[in-house]
């Protein structure tokens, strides 16, 4: 037992080992310690989804997790979505095409939720999309554009 711990986690494809204070959330550590500020902070009670990251294949609110909990896990943040060669992923491209990003503050979380959805259901229906994204608030309310982008990305993966 201790108040800080060295953990090892794969973050955006890179295995990293670093020390975290046990009472720091994953969100705090990503933003303040690892400098991965793409993951956003808004409500810190699991309601808005701005802090979403994918942990071992599932989307989660990093504001509700202790960083120590990802010891040994694989974490994807928005910074890890672009393709290896630095090009945008089809999903990111589809967000641009559809005009889904307005102020953009919720968008990292939306992309994470959408990517996790597409990983699980490659061809979701509109209802499945709205359902899978209901934990991601967008006050610019680009919900329709976001859903269209997710569908377009799904279709693009087909061709």
């Amino acid at each position, binding site marked *: 037992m201790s108040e800080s711990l060295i953990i090892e986690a794969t973050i955006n494809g890179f295995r990293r080992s670093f020390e975290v204070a*046990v009472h720091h959330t994953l969100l705090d550590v990503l933003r303040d310690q690892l400098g991965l500020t793409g993951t956003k902070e808004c409500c810190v009670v*699991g309601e808005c*989804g701005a802090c979403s990251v994918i942990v071992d294949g599932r*989307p*989660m609110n990093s504001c509700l997790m202790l960083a120590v*909990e990802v010891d040994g896990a694989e974490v994807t943040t928005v910074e890890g979505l672009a393709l290896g060669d630095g090009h945008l992923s089809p999903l990111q491209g589809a967000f641009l095409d559809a005009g889904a990003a307005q102020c953009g503050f919720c968008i990292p979380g939306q992309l994470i*939720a959408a990517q996790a959805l597409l990983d699980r259901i490659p061809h979701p229906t509109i209802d499945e999309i709205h359902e899978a*994204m209901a*934990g*991601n608030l967008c006050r610019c309310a680009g919900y329709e554009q976001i859903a269209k982008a997710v569908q377009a990305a799904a279709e693009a993966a087909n061709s």
Partner: protein
Amino acid sequence: MKTFEYARPSTVAEAVALLEQHGPDAELLAGGTDLVIEMRNAWKVPKVVIDLKRIDELRPAIRENGQWISISSTTVMTDIAEDARIQKYFPALVESAVVVGSVQIRARATLAGNICNGSPAADTAPPLLIYRAVVAIAGPAGRHKIPIDDFIVGPGKVALGRGELVTGIELPIPRQPIGAAYTRLTRRRGTDLASITLCCSVEEGGVARIAYGSVGPRAVLVEDSSGVLADPGAPDERKSEILDEVFADASPSLRSMRASPDYRRAMLRVLGARALQTAIDRFGDAS
């Protein structure tokens, strides 16, 4: 958040020992969707946090032995919703698991945590009551099981003694056809805590059971064996009278900002009648 010591036991026995040692200074951490918020707001300031997620015994998440389905205490809502066995035998539990929070919350929130947290609005409590769930507990004195109805005590209170933790929740596989349905009342369609949680079942012999929560200190279970509620042909007035009795114990909060007591009472009747109808239809399909 105040700092604490973080423990990651690998066996139940270790976890029990830690719990016993630290008593009220320790908190168990499952998915953390309740606990992390409580700690951030300093409603809970544990000295020791015991993470249950590295305990091998608590895997696999879901087991079946022909008579029972056991759901280990680290099993999250997503696992429950996706499990074919649970979908088959306990569809109303799935209906409640898929409305807990959002996809992100369901990937973390455990069934056991939902019950142990003791919220009167816990979505999974009514279906667990309906399906006669049993809570498996480990503690300094060994292991025992108690019915869910006895386990749930009141707001923030469950029947756990010092050093005890929940290892799983077990559900008897129904031997006879049963039709069950879950429904809830919320302020919007997206993620919301429920102002009413309600589950009904219709079983052999004209038995109807209704469990409902969020309208009193804990979710309650009422059984009607008059045959009226389960009878598709019974006149509405008769059903109405019985539903009045079923919901007589509801004591919705006067101070809640989610819904007024009058609205909750009225909606119990509306949702109750609707869920009952679904349960009757499903019973018809099942038998």
